[in-house]
């Protein structure tokens, strides 16, 4: 199986799907001529032409709304945000139009649209450009929220997202575009939405990690194994619908959980996972669910402070040892 970057895997996913279905088009800032701010759309303009790969003006609310309208009349748009930080401008179209159209039209208009782009922290892009917004979108019924952590998942999940008839928020981690991994070449390879993946099996504690936290959790698990602690790493991959069953099964096995996330803790996805674990596996918990989240402050610009603001391997190790009552 070829080893490629997550950037290339996402590119493959769009290319394969656009070949498969001519109703699919890509639109966003700099996606065409510049081939994407992060080069995810590299070569697509050349291959599919400017009717299907479209540079938009710098107006998120406008092109997001254009995408929703296109979806209503039968196309399958992929709307790229240069980063999800800019999607904040488009939330009226995403939340009020895309998420609710099927419901408010009595099932007449499905909205098969993908809003995708990088999210989360990058490297020293400061407060306004380093946000993990998944909990915003996951809060609304009508939206699906996907966050891949490996190139293979990125490809398989994006293909599923494009084929899905509901609006999907697809958040790629900005720091992970260059991460490499084996990715199947099969044009029919997909990863279903709403199915978590056990990235590593273990018996003493579970780390529920998504996106950027997955490689960090796996590194922590490696270190902990040397200390004699067996850690299971569960990646939900889809935030909504959430595969709580896989998480709960893991908790039933290990009895202790750490939820790692790059977003803020308050009203976050980790809070939701924690609550559902308590609801479904209370009698299996040997310790309170521990969350390791971003600092409850805007992201600092300074490199040293930025490093301290998001969870790292050391903090995850300490958290696992805490819930396992080892310290």
């Amino acid at each position, binding site marked *: 199986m070829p080893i490629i970057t997550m950037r290339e895997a996402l590119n493959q996913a769009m290319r394969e799907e656009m070949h498969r279905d001519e109703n699919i088009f890509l639109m966003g800032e700099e996606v065409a001529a510049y081939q994407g701010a992060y080069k995810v759309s590299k070569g697509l303009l050349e291959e599919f032409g400017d009717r299907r790969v479209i540079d938009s003006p710098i107006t998120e609310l406008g092109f997001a709304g254009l995408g929703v309208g296109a979806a209503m009349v039968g196309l399958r748009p992929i709307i790229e945000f240069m980063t999800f930080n800019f999607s904040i401008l488009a939330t009226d179209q995403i939340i009020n139009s895309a998420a609710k159209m099927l419901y408010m039209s009595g099932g007449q208009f499905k909205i098969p649209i993908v809003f995708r782009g990088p999210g989360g922290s990058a490297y020293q892009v400061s407060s306004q450009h380093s946000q993990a917004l998944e909990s915003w979108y996951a809060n609304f019924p009508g939206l699906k929220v996907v966050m891949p952590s490996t190139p293979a998942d990125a490809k398989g999940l994006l293909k599923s997202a494009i084929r899905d008839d509901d609006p999907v928020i697809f958040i790629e981690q900005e720091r992970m575009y260059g991460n490499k991994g084996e990715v199947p070449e099969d044009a029919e390879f997909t990863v279903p939405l709403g199915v978590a993946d056990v990235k590593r099996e273990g018996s003493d504690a579970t780390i529920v990690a998504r996106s950027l936290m997955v490689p960090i959790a796996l590194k922590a698990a490696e270190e902990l194994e040397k200390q004699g602690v067996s850690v299971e790493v569960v990646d939900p991959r889809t935030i909504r619908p959430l595969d709580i069953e896989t998480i709960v099964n893991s908790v039933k096995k290990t*009895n202790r959980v750490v939820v790692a996330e790059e977003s803020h803790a308050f009203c976050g996805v980790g809070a939701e996972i924690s609550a559902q674990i308590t609801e479904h596996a209370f*009698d*299996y*918990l*040997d*310790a309170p669910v521990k969350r390791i989240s971003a600092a409850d402050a805007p992201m600092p610009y300074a490199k040293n402070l930025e490093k301290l603001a998001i969870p790292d391997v050391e903090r995850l190790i300490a958290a696992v040892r805490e819930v396992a*009552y080892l310290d």
Partner: protein
Amino acid sequence: MATQVVMPKLSPTMEEGQLSRWLKKEGDKVSVGEPLAEIDTDKATMEAQALATGVLRKIFVNEGETVPLGAVIAIIGEPDEDISALVAKAGSSEAQAENKQSIQESVKAGGDGAPVELARVVPDGARTQATIEGEPLKGDVGGDAGSEQPQPASAGGNRQPPPPTKQAPPATHEGNGQGKQPSDGGRLIVSPLAARMAAESGINLQSLTGTGPSGRIVKRDIEAAISAGQQKTTAAPAVAAPPQPPPPAPDAQTTPAPPQPAAAPQTTTIKPAVEGASPYRDEPMSVMRGTIARRLVSSIGPVPHFFLTTEIEMDRAAELRRSLNELDAEIKTSLNDFIIKAAAVALVQHPMVNASFQDKSIRFYERADVGVAVAIDEGLITPVVRSADRKSVGQISREVRELAERARARKLAPEEYTGATFSVSNLGMFGIDEFTAVINPPEAAIIAVGAAQAKPVVRDGEVVVRQIMRVTMSCDHRVIDGATGAKFLQTLKKILENPLLLMA
């Protein structure tokens, strides 16, 4: 500084007290620890002690008067001190309510209900040995009665009363054998998983020490307890206990159970709060036992009684008693003394009957402490013969007579009438053939004994005359099932019909 003396809480059920007799009069000097008055409660006559040194300045309650808990009964102060403010306040219902509340809070907090800074009491017997110089009463004074005393402030001239927040030590007369949880002062902290594991494996959480933060009991503590329990049973095969702690209560009506082994691997013996009461162990209740308890209570009230009656031939016991009493003028045993002894011996053989319902567990007592119902003018009281199974009939006889005498004089200390594990009520002397008695909670059973009377009965096909006594046992169905009670009565009957067994 002048001090109020208030009506203290002298028994667990006391709401008011009658001032029986003042031992001091207005103008008398009093010092800390000195008895001030005798007070009749619902159970006994007790002495109220002075907690302040000075002069008994004012008495508010006349002899024979009954006042509610917390009412101001007197004021102690310096001879020339102005006490008009206190006098004015004394009669108010606010003052009484305030004092009563502080007493109740003290009781809730595990105290003995005596407002520390106001008045203290000792049962009779303690007084004679206690100093009246204000020295703290020691725990070994007066049969441990002194151990419940708050430490008074030093008796020096310029005394400060103890701060009102000072906690009275745990009462010894508060308990009725139920005692307090060992985790007194803080609830047990258990992880949800550990709680479930403990419930499934029948481990008593109270016996564990948690190794998690704040002493939280976690998975590894339960695993350690399980493996320790298994080791114990494999290491000590002499203990006839299965490796998994059995539910303590097999339903004897459907599953004839062998005699319960007294020892269980996972429980520890707990010293009771009442001085001199039987040590016990609490075993987690089986699910079936819990269901039986719930269903029966919802049917007929807090203690679901049922009754078993048997006829016992008392000829041999009566003969033995007569012979015994003829041997020595000092020996004055009654048939009831034999019944107490026989019941105690039977109790030891039937631990399920020598037990108590404890909400989540069944409490098994190690000793048979038999309460003996004694009718007194004002009502009924049940002094306790401790360890009756180990005492001779003669010893039981002497004790019962002595306790009954003091009961009639209302001079029993609380620990002498609380904490029995079983009771005997006998109305035979009133010519009653048969009756049912009400269980004295938290005991699980009581026997009601009728008169032994000559009756014609059939033995070996012949009509003969025998001394027949009817005994009716009231059982708490949450603990005792029909067959369990019946087996106990069988044993009791066998012993009384063959009293030589008491020598065995």
